[in-house]
């Protein structure tokens, strides 16, 4: 229980077996490879660098394929299923064989070609569409369009738009050049003619000799010129036909390219997904091995390994070659070994919660087994409804029945909620809460009322002060437990003054005051009442002494001591913080009650009332469950992190991250 003991290991081996060694290191999954503390003159394993570059190239190809083909591929395995372990089972050897026969570079080159062709086709198609739009504007232009492109020897032309109300002035301006020019105004739609500010499309034709004058006149009349594509030279109707044909051709080509991309996606994506896991693992392997030291023919790899995994690893690595030497030693002063939390199976899921805060430093207390029972109980009190607990359990049962290979971390996370559901069930039964007041709210539940009332020991709705008191007592127990753990840690490190002055003192003070409070209410036998007075006084003196112990001046001593005693208010705040247990429990009960009330009201609607009522009740309780589970997870967690950890735990360790096989798309068979 707590933090696993680690050893620092050094592995010496000949270059020729480096791949095999790397394979064993990775597949055993118990070694965190680190770079050596040797002087820098020793060369790093350069050939692993070359390999790394090669592997990363493959990963780059895969990323490109995922990005490009992802939208063309409908994954037969949903990401939810995949998260819960529904993946094909393959060994690294299977994937290596697949990798040897799959040329990812070639596939991505092909996809890249198609991608380029696709964008070229799309550009061409949109160009054709632009031209078509222009021609549609000029559709009653009677001459060949060669006039407006490059023009002929005796005639040139420009296309432009002109506001309706400028037309007359342009015609007027062109009068002196009437012989050399012709203005053709396209009919356009009626709409444009009706409005004076709408623009008209026109073609202005002229003899090349007067080009400049004509253009000046046109610009003067605010005609805005539009560049006509030079390659369009036929009549408008011919050119439109050609353009339509071109557009159809582009559309066809685009469809073909998309079709082939879809086909490639269907063929290669499943393989690419598997290879993604393979190459990413190879990259991890090469990256870790890169930190090995190398001499002419020997490599030295340094890593952390849990002591208990050492014998088995030794056996595996010695099977690779007889010329391998493995040395191990305990961590020395100045080294910071990573932390591997190690707990019994029941507690293990809660390691996630500790990890979310910060793992303990190596050799320090792992708070996981300490927080687990409190989190369990607090979750139960906050959710506190037997009906919700049963729904959660049923959902998890179905989930584990359907998914047999749920990955460990996902499973652990779900297990936290499974434990929470058990606590919720217990608390729900004890407080008579089943989907809120479902049993009391509906007449057809009447037969169960007697059973409910017989087991129930308290009703938070009727006696909230009892539950509040009980929540605060729970809080005091939690906080005091934290203080004792802190005292134990100080004793272990030989800091007796800190243990007594900073932890035990507060323990005595707070417990003494709490008991004293109970005693004044007459709830304690005389002896205990006297003891409580002694405890609080001794505690207060210790707090006072500890705060001022390093001050030399008597006044500073007194001021520090009094300030420290004033710190009792923070304990008051901490204890009151546990009133959230009552509040959140209330929250779920009242939300449940409201849903039942609304359901009951809905059942009064004629004819379809029962249907509405069922919808309201089922939907409402689903909503209530989700909201309350979130709250029941977050708030107990806060009580651990802020109130409980605040008394003894700071975290700050580095998590042990062994080189191993990770996977996203396959289940790697060992």
């Amino acid at each position, binding site marked *: 229980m707590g933090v696993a003991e680690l050893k620092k290991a050094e592995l010496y081996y000949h270059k020729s077996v480096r791949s095999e060694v790397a394979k064993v290191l990775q597949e055993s999954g118990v070694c965190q490879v680190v770079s050596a503390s040797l002087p820098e003159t020793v060369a790093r394993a350069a050939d692993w660098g070359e390999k790394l570059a090669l592997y990363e190239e493959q990963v780059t190809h895969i990323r490109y394929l995922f990005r490009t083909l992802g939208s063309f591929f409908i994954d037969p395995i949903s990401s939810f299923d995949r998260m819960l372990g529904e993946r094909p089972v393959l060994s690294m050897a299977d994937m290596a064989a697949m990798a040897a026969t799959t040329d990812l570079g070639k596939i991505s080159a092909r996809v890249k070609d198609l991608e380029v062709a696709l964008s070229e086709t799309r550009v061409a198609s949109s160009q054709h569409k632009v031209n078509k739009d222009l021609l549609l504007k000029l559709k009653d232009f009677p001459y060949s369009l060669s006039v407006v492109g490059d023009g002929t020897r005796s005639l040139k032309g420009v296309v432009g738009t002109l506001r309706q109300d400028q037309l007359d002035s342009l015609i007027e301006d062109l009068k002196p050049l009437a012989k050399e020019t012709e203005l053709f105004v396209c009919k356009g739609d009626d709409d444009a003619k009706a409005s004076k500010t709408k623009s008209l499309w026109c073609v202005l034709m002229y003899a090349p000799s007067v080009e400049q004058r004509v253009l000046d006149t046109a610009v003067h009349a605010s005609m805005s010129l539009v560049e006509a594509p030079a390659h369009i030279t036929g009549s408008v109707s011919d050119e439109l036909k050609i353009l339509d044909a071109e557009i159809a051709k582009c559309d066809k080509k685009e469809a073909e390219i998309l079709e082939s991309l879809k086909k490639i996606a269907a063929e290669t994506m499943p393989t690419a997904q598997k290879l993604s896991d393979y190459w990413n693992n190879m990259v991890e392997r090469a990256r870790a091995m890169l930190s090995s030291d190398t001499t002419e023919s020997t490599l030295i790899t340094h890593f952390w390994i849990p002591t208990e995994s050492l014998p088995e690893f030794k056996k595996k690595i010695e099977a690779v070659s007889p010329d391998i030497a493995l040395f191990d030693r305990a961590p020395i002063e100045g080294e910071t070994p990573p932390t591997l939390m190690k707990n019994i199976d029941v507690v293990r899921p809660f390691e996630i919660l500790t990890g979310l805060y910060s793992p303990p430093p190596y050799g320090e207390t792992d708070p996981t087994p300490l927080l687990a029972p409190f989190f369990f109980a607090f979750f139960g009190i906050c959710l506190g409804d037997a009906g919700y607990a049963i729904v959660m359990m049923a959902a998890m049962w179905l989930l584990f029945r359907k998914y047999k290979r749920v990955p460990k971390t996902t499973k652990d996370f779900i297990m936290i909620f499974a434990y929470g559901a058990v606590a919720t069930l217990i608390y729900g039964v004890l407080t008579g809460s089943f989907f809120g007041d479902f049993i009391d709210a509906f007449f057809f539940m009447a037969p169960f009322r007697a059973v409910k009332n017989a087991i129930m020991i308290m009703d938070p709705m009727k006696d*909230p002060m009892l539950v509040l008191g009980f929540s605060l007592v729970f809080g005091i127990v939690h906080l005091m437990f934290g203080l004792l753990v802190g005292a134990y840690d100080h004793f272990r490190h030989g800091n007796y003054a800190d243990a007594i002055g900073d932890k035990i003192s507060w323990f005595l003070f707070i417990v003494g005051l709490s008991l004293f409070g109970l005693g004044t209410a007459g709830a304690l036998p005389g002896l205990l009442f006297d003891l409580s007075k002694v405890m609080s006084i001794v505690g207060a003196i210790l707090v006072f002494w500890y705060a001022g112990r390093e001050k030399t001046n008597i006044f500073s001593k007194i001021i520090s001591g009094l300030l420290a005693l004033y710190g009792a208010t923070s304990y008051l705040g901490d204890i*009151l913080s546990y*009133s959230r247990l009552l509040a959140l429990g*209330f*929250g779920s009960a009242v939300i449940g009650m409201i849903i039942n009330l609304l359901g009951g009201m809905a059942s009064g609607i004629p004819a379809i009332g029962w249907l509405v009522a069922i919808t309201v009740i089922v939907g409402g309780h689903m909503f209530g469950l989700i909201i309350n589970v979130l709250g029941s997870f*977050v708030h107990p967690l806060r009580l651990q992190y802020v109130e409980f950890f605040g008394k003894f735990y700071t975290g700050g360790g580095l998590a042990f991250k062994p080189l191993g096989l990770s996977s996203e798309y396959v289940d790697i068979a060992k």
Partner: protein
Amino acid sequence: MEYLGLTLALFGAALASLLAGIGSAVGIGIAGESAAGVMTEDPDKFGSCLILQALPGTQGIYGLLIMFFALNKLGLLGGGEAALVTWNQGLQILASCMPVAFVGWYSAIWQGKTSAASIQMIAKKPEAMGKAIILPAMVETYAVLALLSSILMLMGVQLG
């Protein structure tokens, strides 16, 4: 004037769900803007972002809860006869609704801001999800305490 008490009480119930609801809407909106920004870079963070965005939503629910609690107390739910409320009792119910109304309103907005910041945090450090959830939950503490105050106060009000 015989309905003054009931009106005052209803005013309180309305404020509870109204102010707390506004607060949650604003808070979730603030967090949502941040979440959308993060997801444009990394759509896979949808799950974590959604949880963080949802955190300031509880105040609205607490407000609703108090509103129902008050309505239930007034006998306005379930179609029976409404309770007879003097103006004094009406004021008492109005006062009881105040903690959740105002604390809910303000805390949801600030919780939304903290959530938005937490969302930015997990954008860079997804492994810090635990801490990212706790920071907004620190703000929510006061909404929970206000809820508790309102519930206890409402339970204490005696309607004759």
